[in-house]
């Protein structure tokens, strides 16, 4: 058995050992607050078992292992529906960036360890009402205030801000230069005076995203994580971290097996739906597509194991998987006809077709919309020209609104 196989076996055994305490069944019927509390205990258990910060340096409380071990663990973890969602952003982007760019090492270490134990949560304050994809067009501003800074403005779509202790934020510090040159990157205390968090209820009924308002929020200059005016490159670095996370060719919706089961149970025109050509075609097409993504991801893992950088085709995962999950979910509702009307707002998108359907649009927008991903593929991989950008090179305060 290879070292990695042994690692996988151990990870799998550990996950199995905590299913009764933290698995899907244990979470059933909990309020969000109760689930978060359970999640914090789960995160602590991971930390104690050596499965938190798997590929982070040991000096920060990590395990000092490779990315391959991390995604190996995540692939095992994903099977059980553990309450880890509250820490996904926190440990995925803001905290790694803090490790990379935070100036005060003692402070950073304390934060990182608390985040790894689930005691503290970090959020990422990037998108704004005026734009998400156009990150550099943000309007929230920080002005000098004595030796420090004063922040005013509004962020939006901030995941888990209502439970966050800290956040990383990009703000405009100079409106007189081109838009991406006038930005600076800070961390902020989410409990500081002047910070107001207001949850946004989404179409599916849950409220994990928020509006965050900043009214004269004062921070000292030691919160700064980039040179003044150098915030955009740190923001890009944030978005580049974790490009190869554990992926799911089901687009974080139900597995295709569940659709096949449904088609075997239900009848269309008096015959099992699995015998209907329209249904068969969809099953076959979805299988081929998902098998392709699975193969891409297996090759990416092999390349990482071999010390190589995986190819750019990994960028297809979210684009292809979520889009097709949306259509397959619609089809699953079609199959059930009027029996599909009954709706459980608390059902999991991983095993409930209606939940998968109603939450699918979020997946196609968050973390890079389909259109943004297509632009990225076209420009970065295929070398096609950028879109026409009328605001290019123009000082931010002279861009026509």
């Amino acid at each position, binding site marked *: 058995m290879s070292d990695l196989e042994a690692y996988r076996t151990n990870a799998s055994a550990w996950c199995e050992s905590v299913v009764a305490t933290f698995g899907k069944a244990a979470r059933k019927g909990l309020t969000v607050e109760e689930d978060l509390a359970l999640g914090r205990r789960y995160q602590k258990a991971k930390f104690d078992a050596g499965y938190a910060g798997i590929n982070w340096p040991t000096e920060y409380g990590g395990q000092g292992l490779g990315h391959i071990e991390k995604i190996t663990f995540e692939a095992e973890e994903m099977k059980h529906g553990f309450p880890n969602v509250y820490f996904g952003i926190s440990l995925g982007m803001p905290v790694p960036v803090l490790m990379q760019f935070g100036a005060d090492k003692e402070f950073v270490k304390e934060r990182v360890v608390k985040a790894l134990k689930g005691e503290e949560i970090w959020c990422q304050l990037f998108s704004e009402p005026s734009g998400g994809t156009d990150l550099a067009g943000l309007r929230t501003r920080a002005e000098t205030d004595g030796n420090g800074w004063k922040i005013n403005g509004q962020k939006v779509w901030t995941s888990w801000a209502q439970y966050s202790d800290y956040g990383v934020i990009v703000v405009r510090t100079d409106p007189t230069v081109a838009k991406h040159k006038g930005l600076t990157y800070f961390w902020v205390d989410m409990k500081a005076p002047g910070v107001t968090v207001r949850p946004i209820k989404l179409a599916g009924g849950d409220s994990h995203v928020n509006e965050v308002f900043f009214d004269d929020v004062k921070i000292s200059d030691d919160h700064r994580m980039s040179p003044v005016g150098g915030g955009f490159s740190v923001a890009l670095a944030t978005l580049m971290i974790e490009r190869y996370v554990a992926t799911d060719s089901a687009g974080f919706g139900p597995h295709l097996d569940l659709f096949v089961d449904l088609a075997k149970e239900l009848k269309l025109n008096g015959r099992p739906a699995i015998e209907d050509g329209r249904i068969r*075609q969809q099953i076959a097409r979805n299988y081929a597509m998902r098998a392709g993504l699975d193969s891409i991801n297996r090759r990416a893992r092999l390349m990482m194991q*071999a010390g190589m950088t995986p190819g750019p085709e990994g960028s297809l995962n979210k684009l292809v998987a979520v889009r097709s999950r949306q259509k397959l979910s619609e089809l699953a509702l079609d199959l059930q006809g009027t029996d599909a009307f009954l709706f459980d707002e608390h059902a999991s998108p991983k095993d409930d077709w209606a939940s998968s359907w109603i939450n699918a649009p979020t997946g196609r927008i968050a973390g890079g919309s389909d259109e943004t991903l297509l632009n990225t593929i076209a420009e970065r991989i295929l070398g096609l020209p950028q879109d026409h950008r009328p605001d290019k090179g123009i000082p931010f305060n002279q861009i026509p609104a």
Partner: protein
Amino acid sequence: MSILYDEGQQAIATESRRAIEARISKDDLLPLLQTTGKYHEAFWTTAKEQGWTALALPEAYGGLALGLVELGLIAHQAGRTLSGAPFLTSSFGAAKAIELYGSDAQKERWLPGLASGEAIGTIAFASGPDALPAQPTATWAADRLNGHANGVSGGLFADVAIVFASTGDKPALVIADLSGVTRTAVDSFDNSRCIADLVFSGTPAELVATGDDARTAALHVLALQAVVTAHEQTGGAEALMEIARDYAITRKAFGQPIGAFQSIKHRIAELYGFVELARANAIHAAASEGSSDFITAAAAARLSATEAYDTAARDCVQIHGGIGVTWEIGLHLHMRRARSLALEQGSSFFWEDILVDRLAGDVA
């Protein structure tokens, strides 16, 4: 299973691309469309000289004992450049059928010639839309074959065919010596495929399997060929994606490259997705030869490769506008090939059913 190509395999890809690109161009291929009974001789000579015909066959019969992964790499390059003859896949299918299901005497008789390329083989299973028909159009009895097989790719020049026939009320897989067979060339939209209608009239033929065994063997041979073809289709789709990309960068309209318009660049980015999914499935299927889920992997590879090539052909022409539909630019060579490859070895309907039967647990 899934693999990374090793150095030797990468060398096969590079060398085969160099060899094919040096010997074949669209100017050679366009005239072949307008005549029947001709294929691109330089392509086939190259295939023989380079040992591609021998690649995936056993050493005992003059083969090189490599496998689907390596043959797939060559098929991919052939697909990029539009191969000038169908024999690489058709002979491979016939040879594998003989290797896997034939007697020692049958192997001795046919495999050395197929490995060297001196003999050409093909398969004749289909009847119209049925890739493995319930009622085959040829019947076998007492070492003789009667009936017909229509639309056989490579059939115009094949020396030997593996025929899916019937014997009594059971299916039969037989090796037919085509030397005395009556062949009529099919005037097709892709004439270098050398498609023929074959008439068997007391044609000498030896039985290799009957009943369920014949059907299982035939499906396995089709799947082996389908994986080779999936690589060829992926290569064609990849070439079209690159052609579309290059055109979108150079062609200007309204003061900018047309590739700066999202309606164009997103179309090409979508092609990238089709190509990479097809490639991933093809590699996985090639590496799965011999495993229990080979047929499933082959079906997935076949479906995504057909979709990739058809879509790329459609969209690449569309992105070119008027010039794209001209005879001279030759994009229609890919359009034609995308369709001929989609029909050989069973259409998407066939592979969808093969796949779903397995996913639904109706077939182990």
